[in-house]
Each structure stands twice: as C-alpha cells, then as structure tokens.
C-alpha cells in the first residue's frame, strides 16, 4: 500500500476517523494503530509480518532483561538482540549478495565455485525497523531510556505505519514517550500536518514522478545520449531522489502530526549544504544520526588521532552505503562519501596552518563571505551529484558508461532542451522552497506566508495532484 495510491487515502481516512473516535483512550488508539500498521504492512506481503513480530518480541524482552540484569547478563541480552536483528537483516538482505560476491571472487582465482542463490525476497522496510529497534536495546543498555514494559506501546513503536517502511528511523528516547503518553489532536497540528502532507505529495507525485521517466530513460541505455543529457539526467535524479524521499518523509510527518505524533525532520535543505559533512547533517538525518551514535562513536569517533578518524569515517560510510542495498554500487557510493568526509577532515586539520584562509572568508554578511558560501554550496552539489550517479547506476559498466558520457563525450545533444526545461523547473521550485525555509529558519514556509499566497499554493498543489493523478510508482527508499 503506497502513500501515493487511492487505497492508502481510503485506508488512512478510516483509521483517522476511528482514531478520533477513540480520543483520550490511549490504549484503544494504540491498539488501533497496531492493527492498522499490521494491515498496512500485510498489504505488501503478510508473511513478513512474522519478522516484525519476531523483532518486537525479542527486543521487548531483551529491553526488560537488560534493564534488570547484572553486568554480564545485560551484555548477553544486548548481544542476543543484536544477533537476532542483524541476523534477520543479513539473511534477508545480504545473503544472496554475499553468495554471489563470493562466487565471483572464487572465479577470479580460477576456482569458479557455483553456489545456488537462495532467491530471498527483500521484506519492505526491513532496514528501517531493524535499526529502529536496535537503537532501543542499545539505548536501554546505555541507560538512556528506561525499558518499555507496555507490550502494546512497544509494538506500536516498532510498527507505526506512517514511518514503518521508509523512516524516519526514530529513537526510543524521542518517539516511545509519545506512543505511551496521551495525545491530543489540536487544530494547529492539523494545520501543520496539512502543509506537510500537501508539500510531501507535491514533491513526490508532481515533481519526482514527473522527472523520473526522463532519468529512467537515460539509465535504460546511457550510451545513446550525449554529455549534456547525461548531466541533465543526473541532475534529474538528484531532484528525483530528494523529491521522492523528502516527499515520503513529509507525508509521514504530516499524517503522524494529524494523530498527535511528532516525527523528526529527516531533511533540512540538503542541497544548500556547504560541505559533505554539512550534507550529512541535512540529508536522511535519522540514518546519519544513527550511524554517528551507534557506529562512528563506537569505533572511537574522532578522538583517537587522524588515521583512526579517517578509518572510522570510511568504515561508517561504507556500512552506510551497504545499508542502502546489497549491491556494489551502494558500497562504492558509501566509499565515495567516506573519502569526501576524510578529505574534509584532512582540510580542517591542515587549514589553521595556512594562516590567511579566514581573511578570504570575511565576516558573515559580507559579499565575499556570501560568494564563498555560494561557491561551496555549488561544489558540494556537484560532488553530491557525482555520488548520486554512483547510487543510481545498476552495474559497474553503467557507472563507466555514464561517467564517460558526462566527462568525455561532447556536450551537444539536440534533445537536451526536452530534458532541461522540466528538470530545471523542478529543481528551481525545490530550491526556492529550500532557500525560503533556510531564510526564515522554519519548515512552515506556507504557514508563515500571507493567507492569499498560502491558499493559492495549496490550491495549485491540489489541482496539480488531480491533474497528474497517482502513478503506480514506488518510493525509491522502499527497496531499502
């Protein structure tokens, strides 16, 4: 059941009416949310509900045991939770990839082992809810959150349908109290939720889905296009993935807000980032925070010298890449970002020795400072675009062909204008909204605007949605 389907609209309307009818009955609302979440998930494949149930039961009891146990038993239960969750993830997501890679490796050494693939279907959203439940047990172990003794509430925390299949990956410290406590549906939440939902659908259905066919067309056979279209298609993917994922996150936040929940903001104007590190503070923030807290810091972070820091950055980003999918292009993409972060780290270490760098930067507000910031944003954008090319390509040969088209092929291609106009329009709209958000330092851009502007934009969005309709396109991040 996709957010961008009429089935989901009907499903949500029914759930919402029932939810409102159960006002002030938290347990009743939670029961409703749990049942509807399971129905929502079962709409994809009911068999994989068993994995969510397994994760829920294991982590619920592990949390209680960790809290009450002595030092040794606490470690054992944490290890048990890690093994079960990561074991399920490894089996369902990485088993075939590992087998295939092993066979290829043996073939390189002339052994040519042939191990049959298990052909395991990837359960939707498994990476998201696995990381969410893992954060719970780790936080309980560290004493950051008390163990949840309400099984119903914990099950809702794991399976809450608005963010079950593509995040944001909520930490128990932030989300569990909202699930366990009473919730009020206030007018202001409905108004804010409306902006999130409308803007989310606009990003996904109108912008991302309109650009997607051009991108898909290019990637179907990259060798057939010239350099200009290769660049435009990759800018298109940069727009598409942002519209797609940020759109999903906004819809998730909006429909949650209508029910009184506040999910974390997964995006903060990512293409206005002025450095790779800044980008990861703005893009898929729930994942980057998870990786930082539970992986990077565990490895030692930046406290053990330059070399260890570089190793930690590379390792974290490689695993972050692998989290996205069982494919080498994701590993390469992660490695690419790791190298960028290492480069930035090295620059930060070297920079003070260069002395006069700060003079070029000028004071905030000065023209030179603004120009420098703009230059940084543009360089970062191009780097991210190169990263997205690695992310989008389906094979190593596609990566080679696409980069050769981008950097070695002549730019002239007579069809460039048919790509440039829609993609340029979409990215301009996104940038205007993001710059506006950055300027007012708030996501509620339309709520801060005059009423006429707000309602004109809202009606434009509604008319656009009616015009293009819901196309049967999945969200990109559902596959992770």
């Amino acid at each position: 059941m996709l957010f961008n389907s009429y089935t989901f609209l009907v499903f949500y309307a029914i759930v919402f009416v029932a939810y409102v009818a159960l006002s002030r009955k938290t347990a009743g609302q939670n029961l409703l949310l749990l049942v509807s979440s399971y129905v929502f998930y079962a709409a994809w494949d009911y068999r994989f509900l068993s994995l969510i149930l397994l994760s829920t039961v294991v982590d619920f009891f592990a949390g209680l045991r960790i809290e009450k146990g002595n030092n040794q038993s606490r470690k054992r239960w944490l290890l048990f939770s890690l093994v079960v969750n990561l074991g399920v993830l490894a089996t369902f997501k990485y088993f075939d990839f590992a087998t295939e890679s092993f066979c290829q490796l043996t073939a390189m050494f002339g052994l040519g082992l042939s191990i049959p693939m298990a052909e395991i279907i990837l359960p939707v959203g498994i990476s998201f809810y696995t990381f969410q439940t893992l954060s719970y047990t780790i936080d309980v172990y560290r004493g950051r959150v008390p163990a949840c003794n309400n099984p119903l509430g914990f099950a809702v925390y794991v399976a809450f349908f608005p963010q079950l299949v593509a995040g944001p990956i909520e930490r128990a410290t932030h989300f569990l109290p909202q699930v366990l406590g009473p919730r009020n549906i206030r007018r202001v939440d409905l108004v804010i939720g409306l902006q999130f939902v409308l803007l989310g659908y606009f990003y996904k259905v109108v912008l991302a889905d309109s650009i997607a066919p051009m991108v898909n067309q290019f990637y179907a056979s990259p060798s057939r296009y010239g350099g200009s279209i290769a660049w435009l298609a990759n800018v298109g993917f940069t727009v598409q993935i942002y519209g797609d994922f940020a759109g999903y996150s906004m819809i998730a936040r909006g429909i949650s807000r209508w029910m009184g929940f506040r999910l974390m903001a997964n995006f903060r104007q990512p293409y206005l980032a002025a450095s790779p590190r800044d980008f990861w503070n703005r893009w898929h923030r729930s994942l980057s925070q998870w990786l930082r807290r539970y992986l990077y810091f565990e490895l030692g972070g930046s406290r053990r010298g330059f070399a260890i820091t570089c190793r930690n950055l590379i390792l974290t980003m490689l695993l972050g890449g692998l989290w996205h999918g069982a494919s080498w292009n994701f590993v390469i993409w992660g490695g690419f970002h790791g190298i960028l972060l290492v480069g930035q780290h090295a620059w930060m270490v070297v920079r003070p020795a260069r002395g006069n760098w700060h003079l070029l930067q000028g004071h905030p507000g000065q023209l030179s400072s603004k120009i420098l910031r703009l230059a940084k944003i543009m360089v970062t954008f191009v780097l991210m675009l190169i990263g997205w090319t690695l992310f989008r390509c389906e094979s190593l040969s596609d990566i080679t062909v696409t980069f050769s088209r981008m950097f070695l092929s002549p730019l002239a291609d007579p069809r460039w204008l048919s790509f440039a106009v829609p993609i340029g329009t979409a990215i301009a709209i996104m940038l205007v909204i993001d710059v506006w958000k950055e300027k007012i330092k708030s996501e509620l851009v339309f709520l801060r605007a005059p009423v006429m502007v707000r309602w004109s934009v809202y009606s434009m969005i509604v008319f656009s949605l009616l015009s293009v309709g819901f196309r049967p396109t999945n969200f990109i991040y559902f596959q992770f």
Partner: protein
Amino acid sequence: MARENESQLMRTIASMVLAIMIGWVLCESLLRVLVPWPIFYSTWFTEGVHQRDPRFGFVFCSEYDGTMRNADQVWMEPVRLDSRGFRKPAVRGDSDQSSIDNSATQPVRIVMLGGASMGFGYGLADHETLHHQIAERLPNACHIDLVSWPGFTLGQDVQKLTQMTEPSQYDVGVILAYGDDDYRYRSDWDRVDPPNDLHMVHSVVTPRDSAARLGGDLYWDSYVVAGVCRLLRVPANLLAGRESDLDVPPEKAVNENLEDSKPQILMASERLRSLGVDSVLIVALPRQTGFHDAAILPDSTDSMMIDLRREPESLRFDWIAYGHYGPESVKHLAKKIANAIDTLE
C-alpha cells in the same frame, strides 16, 4: 454587527475564490512546463504522423519525418517513414561479391508484419529495429519490408499487405505474435472497422478514452479538467456498466473459439501462403511483464514457429519506452529469428 460579519464572510469567500483561480492558473502553467502537453495527453509521435483513411480509420503519413515520443516520457527518437508510411526497409547486399552463383546475388525478399508497436520498433532508431538487426544477421543478401504499425492488429496488417504491397514478391513472411488476440480464435480476424470516434491531437491519433468523452473539448485544453476526468472515468465507467475504456468487452468480440476457426496467427499464415508468399515463419514475442498467459503455440503444418516468450528469463533484456524492446533485446531476438529464417531458406 451582522452586516459587518456578512461583509467579512463575503471578503473571505471572494479571497478563497480568487486563491482557487490563481492556483488553477499556476497549476496549468507549471504542468505545461513540467509535463509537456502532448506527453500529458499521451501522443506517441510528434505532430503530423497520422492522417484519416476510409479503409483503416487512419494511416501513417508517407514520407513522415518526425520523432517518436513516449507516452509518459520526455524523450525523442527520430523516425522517417517511406512513401507508403512504413519504416524504411532493411536492405543488405551479398557479402560474398566474388560469388559465381547468380542466384546468390538475388536478395531474399522478406516481409514482416504483426506485433504492432513492438514490431514497428517503437522507441528505436532505424538501425536498431528488429528487421534491420535481422538483415544484419542473415548470411545472404536480403530486402526486408516492415508492414507493422503501432495500434494496428495482425488482421489489419494483412489487409495492408494486400492493399499496399504486392505480396507475391516475397519469399518469406514473418508474422510477429505479441498480443493475446494473436493467439485467439476469431472468424472475423481480418475485418477492419474504421472507428467512428477517432480523436486526433495535432494529427496524432490518441487512444479511445472515456475520460476524453467526459470532458468534451475542454479535456484537450486544460490539464486540470483532463486530470479530473481521468479520476472520474472509473466511477463513470462503473455507472455506465463498462469494465474498461473499451466500449465492447474484448471477450465478446474475440474469444469465439469456433470449431471451424483457427488462431489468428495461423489464419494470417494461411492467407500469406495463399497470396503467394513462399514460406512463413511465426514468431511468438516476449513481453516485459513476463510469460503470464498459458497460450500454447498451435500446431501448423505449413509454417514454422519459434517461441521466444521465455527469452527474457535466460538473457538480459533491456526495455525502453514503457515496455518496448531496447536495442539489446532486439539483438537477442534478431539472432534467433535470423537463424530460423536461414533454415527456412
């Protein structure tokens, strides 16, 4: 006080109406840039590709020089049609110029029909189409004419063959089977009824669509009206007792299963033979959606058949233009078909 409230209410309503109108204008403007209108209305070609025709309803224009454009995608592929409106024939000379056998210099004349847009090579450049790729792979000189057109049935293709070409000149006929209808039994398989309500947008025929009927002329002028009509067509069809956009449910028209009838591909094969085509090859083509129908290729004594419907399961196929064969897929298919033609010769 009451009057003040009333005027406040009127102001609010006026503001809302104005906001809605601005929103409508913004939407129409934005979508015209984001989704160019011929693509929004799903025209597959640039303007001027079709013209009305009393026999078939419409035909492809002769010497058309334009571009194919996918219904939902913003891309263009140039296409040129010949004097009959067909894609340019694939001509290949004999590679062995020193041959002393005169018959070897006489090219094999082949005609391909059926398969609608898949046979036409929708989305592919001339040299990438199936008939050009087959010509490249045949060992001897050949001349391959392609009769297939997007939107035309196998029966209509046979009618085109008889009315627009001289069938007896062909040594080999290749029938491409793609749609479910091609495997079905029909007594009236080659009957051609020109549609009465053919709608052309900028000389491009658009598929019959109940949404367009709902919106009337406004459907073609406004994205919003078109979008609302598309949304309403499902309940409208339900109310009208239609299951789909087609007026006549396909089962009534085509699934006759008459004892004295045969599947369309066999009927077409027999017709080709009776028109003087020396030998016939029937090719069952694969689909992007996989091998999902249980249609079994019928037996035939006077034509050869090859079933390529499961090819994508073993070979890497590429798909373009929403489910049409990409260049790599065509190469795979061409190799198999060329081998089969070679054995026929």
